């Protein structure tokens, strides 16, 4: 029994549960807290105690076992019937392992095990208490009282025995019958021989009958073991002819799907936490860097002034003081910006958003910069039609946006250059544009400059841009208005910053709550910055967190950083061709994202072969975009097949399929269905029979056009001859769906998945 446990298993169990155990407090608290009820029968405990004196802990254990610590025994007052066996071993300088076994005579319970491990010297950490998994179940514990014949024999032996016994009894009974009728018949002597033969045959037949079940149980055991080892690939459970075992099998499949899904979710959670932690330390290091740099200048010049007060020329002294003042200003601006970003981030700002004409705000905001432009000899033009369509906005924040953009433009434009502010109405948006002819920003940095701190961590490309937090503040404010901001620039020619604000907000702006995690992270890449910004805007209103890239290089860099759920990319990028880009993306190590290609018409089969999950043809509607992203998000945690349901009446199938780990996509008609088949990477399509009549040719089209020949199944209420014929002709599978029996179809799909797995293994 438990003593036979190998120490390796013991150690493994301890390691596995050590994390769990850290939550528990002191050993005695643990004893009191645990529900030592009858279900705990046979539960081994492993207590690692932070105690130098083994005897003290030992006393504690004894107290808990024999005293009031164990609820079950004390309540029933059967304490006197409890015997405690104590074993102690491996007592050396490093520690000791004590184990005791408790047996209860009247209840026939035994196998209760407590162990205590002492580390000497005591570990500094909290004492850890480890609970190893149940080793003895009730059945085994009560074995002496078991009523079954042939306990501990295998099922096949039992069956063989049963059949043999029945056959023997039959023969004996027949012999007795014959003997009574014809007492002197010589045939009577055949009885012992035929009994022998019959029992042999009975045993053989019995063994044959249960052979399938045995094989099934073995397969199931393997599958359970693989499930228990988290991360193990799913092992298919063999088919079984018998109904009860079939139900067991299905229940297990659902359990497995569920557990895999949960595992996926947990992994996501963990990744998010790690990401947060990473961001936190990044911020700390960057902020400290940015504070230190001006401080260094201040300290340097102040010290030099102090030391050389006498010898320095007056103009040098003045210059030094100017530098110190300038650096102090820089510090204070930095602190202001940091606070502003922090306030925007935690949404502690009072927003005063109301419908208004922004032209006045824009003009006033621009006027402030006229003087600066004049001083620097920059030609500054403002072009703003009046009146502008009404926009829901906070005018103060919008003027802050304008001021940040204009001051950047002024800062980076040389004397004699040009800065232009223009406003125009494009569709349902008003678009502000601030153009300068400064040094320009390379395409690879178009996304980076809007980030909060990242531009500084990418040290090699950052400092020349030196935009600081201003643009991040712009981005946050504009996004809060449901708008978008982007940049278009040519190195050496200048930059144009765009801000687009929607004139009609589709829905009231969500009251953003900082504790709300985003639904998912999407990385959008497009050569056209405006289009990328528009996609981002659509996704952001649905609470997705969006990152942007404008070149293949940046796309790969950002995707490699991880923490991306979905990538939406154009394949016509300036710096990389389509197949190179896709090959790189798909081959990224630790790739966790799903891939959507958003481009002009191209060979979708080829794309799917390259590992693309969905294709969106331009121009894409907002609805299609969101559908594709939603499907891609679900695909991340889904463990089964992606199944297309054609026909409204199949809607009730969706929940059953999801429960079994599959991803159902519903198409109401054939029109939608054939588009989805073309654009999405699907494994199977279920078609309602009602949809079929007129659509055989279309159906064939679906089957043919799909890249990986997807499996088609017809779902019907009862199988008619015509359908049978058609199904045969087209090689389709038919499934019967009775109302309330959706899980049967789900099981059919799971079976299909197994055949896929099987094929992949081969």
């Amino acid at each position, binding site marked *: 029994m438990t003593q036979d446990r190998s120490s390796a298993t013991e150690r493994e169990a301890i390691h596995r549960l050590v994390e769990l155990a850290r939550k528990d407090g002191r050993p005695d608290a643990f004893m009191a807290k645990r529900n030592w009820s009858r279900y705990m029968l046979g539960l081994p405990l492993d207590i690692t105690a932070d105690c130098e004196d083994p005897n003290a802990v030992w006393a504690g254990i004894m107290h808990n076992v024999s005293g009031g610590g164990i609820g079950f025994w004390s309540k029933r007052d059967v304490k006197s019937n409890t015997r405690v066996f104590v074993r102690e071993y491996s007592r050396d300088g490093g520690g000791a392992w004590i184990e005791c076994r408790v047996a209860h005579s009247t209840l026939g319970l035994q196998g209760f095990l407590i162990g205590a491990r002492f580390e000497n010297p005591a570990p500094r950490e909290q004492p850890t208490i480890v609970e190893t998994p149940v080793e003895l179940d009730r059945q085994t514990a009560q074995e002496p009282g078991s009523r079954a014949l042939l306990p501990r024999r295998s099922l096949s032996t039992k069956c063989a025995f049963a059949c043999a016994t029945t056959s023997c009894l039959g023969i004996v009974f027949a012999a007795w019958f014959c003997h009574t009728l014809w007492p002197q018949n010589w045939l009577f002597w055949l009885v012992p021989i035929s009994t022998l033969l019959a029992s042999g045959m009975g045993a053989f037949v019995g063994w044959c009958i249960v052979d399938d079940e045995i094989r099934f149980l073995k397969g199931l055991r393997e599958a359970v073991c693989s499930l228990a080892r988290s991360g193990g690939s799913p092992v298919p459970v063999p088919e079984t002819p018998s109904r009860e075992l079939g139900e067991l099998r299905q229940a297990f499949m659902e359990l497995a799907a569920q557990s895999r899904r949960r595992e996926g979710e947990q992994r996501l959670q963990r990744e998010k936490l790690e990401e947060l932690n990473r961001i936190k330390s990044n911020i700390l290091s960057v902020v400290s*860097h940015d504070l*230190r*740099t001006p401080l*260094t200048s201040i300290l340097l010049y102040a010290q030099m002034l102090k030391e050389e007060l006498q*010898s320095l020329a007056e103009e040098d002294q003045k210059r030094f003081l100017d530098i110190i003042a300038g650096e102090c200003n820089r510090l204070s601006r930095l602190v202001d910006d940091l606070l502003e970003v922090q306030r925007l981030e935690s949404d502690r700002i009072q927003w005063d958003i109301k419908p208004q004409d922004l032209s006045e705000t824009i003009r006033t905001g621009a006027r402030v910069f006229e003087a600066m432009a004049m001083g620097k000899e920059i030609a500054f033009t403002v072009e703003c039609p009046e009146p502008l369509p009404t926009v829901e906005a906070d005018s103060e924040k919008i003027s802050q946006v304008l001021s940040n953009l204009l001051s950047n433009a002024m800062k980076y434009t040389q004397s004699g250059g040009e800065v232009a502010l223009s406003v125009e109405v494009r569709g349902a948006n008003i678009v502000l544009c601030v153009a300068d002819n400064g040094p320009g920003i390379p395409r690879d940095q178009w996304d980076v400059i809007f980030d909060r701190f990242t531009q500084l961590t990418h040290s*090699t490309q950052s*400092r020349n841009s030196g935009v600081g937090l201003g643009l991040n503040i712009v981005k946050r404010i504009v996004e809060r208005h449901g708008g978008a901001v982007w940049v278009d620039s040519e190195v050496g020619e200048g930059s144009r910053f765009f801000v687009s604000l929607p004139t009609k907000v589709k829905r009231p702006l969500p009251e953003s709550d900082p504790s709300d995690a985003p639904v998912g992270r999407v990385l959008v890449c497009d050569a056209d910055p405006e289009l990328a910004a528009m996609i981002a805007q659509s996704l952001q209103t649905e609470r997705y967190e969006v990152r942007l890239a404008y070149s293949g290089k940046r796309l790969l860099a950002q995707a490699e950083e991880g923490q991306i759920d979905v990538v939406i990319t154009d394949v016509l990028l300036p710096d990389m061709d389509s197949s190179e880009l896709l090959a790189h993306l798909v081959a990224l190590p630790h790739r966790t994202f799903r891939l959507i290609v958003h481009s002009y018409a191209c060979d979708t089969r080829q794309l799917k072969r390259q590992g693309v999950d969905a294709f969106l043809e331009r121009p894409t509607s907002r609805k299609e975009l969101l559908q594709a992203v939603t499907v891609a998000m679900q695909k991340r945690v889904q463990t089964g097949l992606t199944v297309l349901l054609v026909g409204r009446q199949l809607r009730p199938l969706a929940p059953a399929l999801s429960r079994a780990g599959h991803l159902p996509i519903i198409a109401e008609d054939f029109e939608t269905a054939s588009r989805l088949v073309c654009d999405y990477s699907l494994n199977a399509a279920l078609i309602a029979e009602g949809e079929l009549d007129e659509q055989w040719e279309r159906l064939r089209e679906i089957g043919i056009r799909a890249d990986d020949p997807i499996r088609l199944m017809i779902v019907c209420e009862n199988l008619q001859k015509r359908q049978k014929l058609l199904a045969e002709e087209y090689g389709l599978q038919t499934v019967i769906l009775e109302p309330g029996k959706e899980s049967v179809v789900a099981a059919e799909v799971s079976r299909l998945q197994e055949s896929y797995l099987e094929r992949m293994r081969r």
Partner: protein
Amino acid sequence: MKRIVVCDDELHILEGLRHLLRGPDRKIVIGHSGVDALEQVRQEVPDLLIIDIMMPKMDGIQAVATLREQEETRHLPIIILTAKGHARDVAMVQEVWNVRVMAKPFEPAKLRQLVAEILETEPCTVPSSN
């Protein structure tokens, strides 16, 4: 004449360092990036290189790594100035490349002292205030 190359992307710091370290027998050359540093060193191996870590184009770490790989600059005295307060990184850099590291903001007098020690000249080329 001792030749010192100073590289930092902050103009004020660069100017300040030039002022701080100036002396009759010293020639101070400045650069704005890691690439500048390598270029200056390539032209003529200086007696001392003072370099920042976070710079555009090529950062200080890369520049120093490149220099240490070359035979003629393997033992070039280098002082790294850094506002990156990662104690572990700094310790590693010091160990591996045999360089001196000074955290920003630094004490100007200490830097002057260190430079003087390295160049083995009199520490004070400029009269101190008292």
